[in-house]
């Protein structure tokens, strides 16, 4: 698979979580790449508060989520 296609797959997973209201709350990086923790606040009482972890492999996706985090932090300021 081309590296661009790998990036698109990973990006899609991140975008889908964002669409569901998740944001990245933690990043851990090691020899195997990056592990992103996604969380979202409860929308109503029945909603379960979930943490989801994504393992990111490609360099382009690691740039991509970094841009998202910076944008996220700018929004909060």
């Amino acid at each position: 698979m081309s590296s661009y296609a790998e990036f698109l797959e990973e990006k899609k997973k991140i975008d889908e979580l964002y669409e569901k209201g998740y944001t990245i709350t933690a990043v851990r990086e090691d020899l195997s790449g990056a592990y992103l923790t996604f969380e979202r606040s409860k929308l109503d009482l029945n909603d379960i508060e979930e943490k989801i972890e994504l393992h990111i492999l490609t360099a382009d996706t690691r740039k991509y989520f970094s841009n998202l985090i910076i944008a996220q932090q700018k929004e909060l300021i």
Partner: protein
Amino acid sequence: MADLRVNFAGIKAPNPFWLASAPPTNSGYQVQRAFEAGWGGAVWKTLGEPILNVSSRFAGTHFNGQRVVGFNNIELITDRPLEVNLQEIYETKKKFPNHAVIASLMVEPKQEKWHEIVKKVQDVGVDGFELNFGCPHGMAERGMGSASGQVPELVEKQTYWAKEAAKVPVIVKLTPNITDITATAYAAVQGGADAVSMINTINSLAGVDIDTWKTIPNVAGKGAHGGYCGPAVKPIALNMVAECARNPEINVPISGMGGVSTWKDAVEFMLMGAGSIQVCTAAMHHGFSIVEDMVDGLNNYLDDKGIESVAGLIGQSVEKYSDWGHLDLNYKVVARINNDVCINCNKCHIACEDTSHQCIDMLTSENGNAYLEVREEDCVGCNLCSIVCPVDGAISMVEIPNGEPMTWNQRQEAIKLPICNS
């Protein structure tokens, strides 16, 4: 006509092109002919206790038919008595009062030795001194040259001793045979240097003859490490000049040298902070007359840019030279092939396929013609294909808009912060 005059740390010269301390400045005869040819200054072949040289002392590195891409030497400092040099310096300065005559000096790292030579040489009217802390061979074995130039404390001390006796500006010439040249440049500044110059030659062995198994050059069958210079060392020299120029603690003028062969090379050094330019190998390869092109080229360049004097050029690119962590990770270029000029040699395809990111496809058009196309989405913009392509204009690196800038430093800061779940 732009004003090419320079005032380098108080040393005035009609132009910034000076001959470096080396064989071209060995004698009054040579330096005077060089001034007549148009050189603005000369750093006299290093003075010190006269040495003995070996015969067979230079070697050239030739590459693919191009002669002298690099130059290697195992020559030492002057082999002539001080008085002979001083007489010729005096005569040269008398004939050319407006040209810069700088005396390069090297003695043992002892206060009285520095005082003695500085005073003797000063009396004949030199415009400045250049302390040679850079020669990597022969002298280093005797505790001089790069041996003392690699130790910041010795650089500082010797600069201080020279400054104690000097009434004219003192330039400290640094060795590149050190991991971080700013350490010794800073030591020179601490010692009171009025300026620094770089680079002297880089430790080298030019080659080994694969038939005789002797070194190149060899002296009766044996070799010793030499010093490398010429076009091949330019990127190393330019980086060292730039690293010093962008270091706020090295706040003295820089005389740049190492591989300068044309006015364009000189402009690059000046943009990166060099206030004067020294040349050795190019003069040894082509003779003194190369300075005519250098002067004309610089003049035309300044006129074209609408810059009135050399001073308007010096250091203009320094702020563009930074640490890797400040570079924009979002900046993106991709390779684009112009099939109108491409000669289908496939070099770019091979380079990308074997050693980069496998994104140049070999395709066939409807009418059966082979052509190459870059899959831009997979191209990382490494530039390799455009570097190996033999045809000008066949590959251009095109910038692709890619959002707001994000440096590595910003990214690391952002991902380590606790991230709120809003």
